[in-house]
């Protein structure tokens, strides 16, 4: 796997939209060619080379291209945009749309990410050491087809509206989450090891949420359905089981109404 390292040398006055920084667009290019890729600051267009020091050539295909991003990229958006293979490693924190519309490959962010990380993800793995922003792994505005595959791992906390319109894939949040988890979800699995606030699982049609910590206010649409002994992500324990959202429409499978499941660790 060939490695391309880009290091921030000329921080932007406003915010930088680096939607060409992904294994797919780097594949088959030399360091010089990568430097000529376009990048946008506001309504001005310039080249990646103007903002980043670029060393190493990309692999022949996206799959064997690894990108290491060093320096202060807290004001850089769209890193790992639409990547389908290969690896992206961000040493620090980055801004919005990290790994947005990802279909494959591995992206790792050592610091924090802002909103809309892993939006409409179809595959691959996005792991964030620090905290994630709002709308993690959610759907784009107006789209009823949200995250449909892949995995998102967050060591720290996550924001609000994670997993909105989720239809598949998996999300594991070690820390706490803000309001609205898996609103409108029709599938997928979300494990929250910290605490959740309110409005968890509103309008859910299908899918599963595990909350190890507390939930401040339960949604009235989630009906208690007993307790169950389970092992979740290597953690054994007793969970209070809720099914819902009973206010929403639900499909029938072999005569049985299919509900979304919410498990809260006791």
């Amino acid at each position, binding site marked *: 796997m060939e490695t391309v390292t880009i290091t921030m040398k000329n921080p932007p006055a406003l915010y930088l939209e680096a939607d060409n920084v992904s294994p797919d667009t780097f594949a088959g290019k030399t360091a010089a060619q990568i430097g000529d890729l376009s990048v946008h600051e506001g309504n001005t267009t310039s080249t990646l080379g103007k903002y980043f020091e670029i060393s190493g050539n990309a692999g022949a295909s996206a799959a064997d291209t690894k990108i290491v991003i060093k320096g202060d990229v807290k004001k850089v958006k769209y890193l790992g945009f639409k990547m389908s293979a290969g690896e992206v490693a961000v040493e620090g924190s980055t801004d919005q749309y990290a790994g947005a519309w990802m279909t494959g490959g591995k992206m790792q962010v050592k610091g924090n990410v802002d*909103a*809309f990380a892993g939006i409409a993800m179809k595959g691959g793995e996005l792991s964030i050491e620090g905290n994630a922003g*709002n*709308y993690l792994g959610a759907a784009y505005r107006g789209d009823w087809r949200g995250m449909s595959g892949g995995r998102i791992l967050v060591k720290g906390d996550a*924001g*609000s*509206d994670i997993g909105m319109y989720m239809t598949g894939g998996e999300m594991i949040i070690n820390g706490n989450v*803000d*309001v609205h988890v898996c609103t409108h979800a029709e599938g997928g699995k979300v494990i929250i090891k910290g605490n959740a606030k309110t409005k968890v699982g509103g309008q859910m049609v299908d899918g599963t949420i595990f909350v190890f910590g507390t939930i401040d206010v339960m949604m009235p649409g989630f009906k208690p359905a007993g307790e169950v002994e389970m092992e979740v992500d290597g953690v054994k324990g007793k969970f209070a089981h809720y099914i819902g959202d009973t206010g929403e429409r639900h499909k029938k499978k072999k005569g049985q109404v299919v509900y979304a499941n919410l498990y809260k660790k006791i």
Partner: protein
Amino acid sequence: MATINVNLISGRSIQQGVAIEGGKEKPAYRTAAGIIELDPSDLKKLGAWKNTNVKVTSDFGSVIVKATETSQGPHPGLGFIPMGPWANAIIDPNTYSTGMPTFKGVPVKVEVAINEPILLGIELVQKLCGVK
């Protein structure tokens, strides 16, 4: 002096509507929107007569307004400052990435501040922004 904690909301009132059309540089705007409407029970807890100046503080700022008895109550535990520079000096700017600040539902502390003046609308914003 006693301080109370209330949940602050902001919004329109007909007096605020007339005042913004009458000219925001005029004192009528301060009379209409430089106020916090509190429930009589909260005023009693605060130990303050009606129409005394109070300092309202949130995690995002503080402002001097006149405490009045609500005409839209009872709403114990809920404070109302009409939308305007006074309310927006202390409401929660967090948009939760929806673009909309949290104008309603901001926990605030209210304490009596009899001698502090309530600034005019434009004057308040210019002072907070450091613009003459």
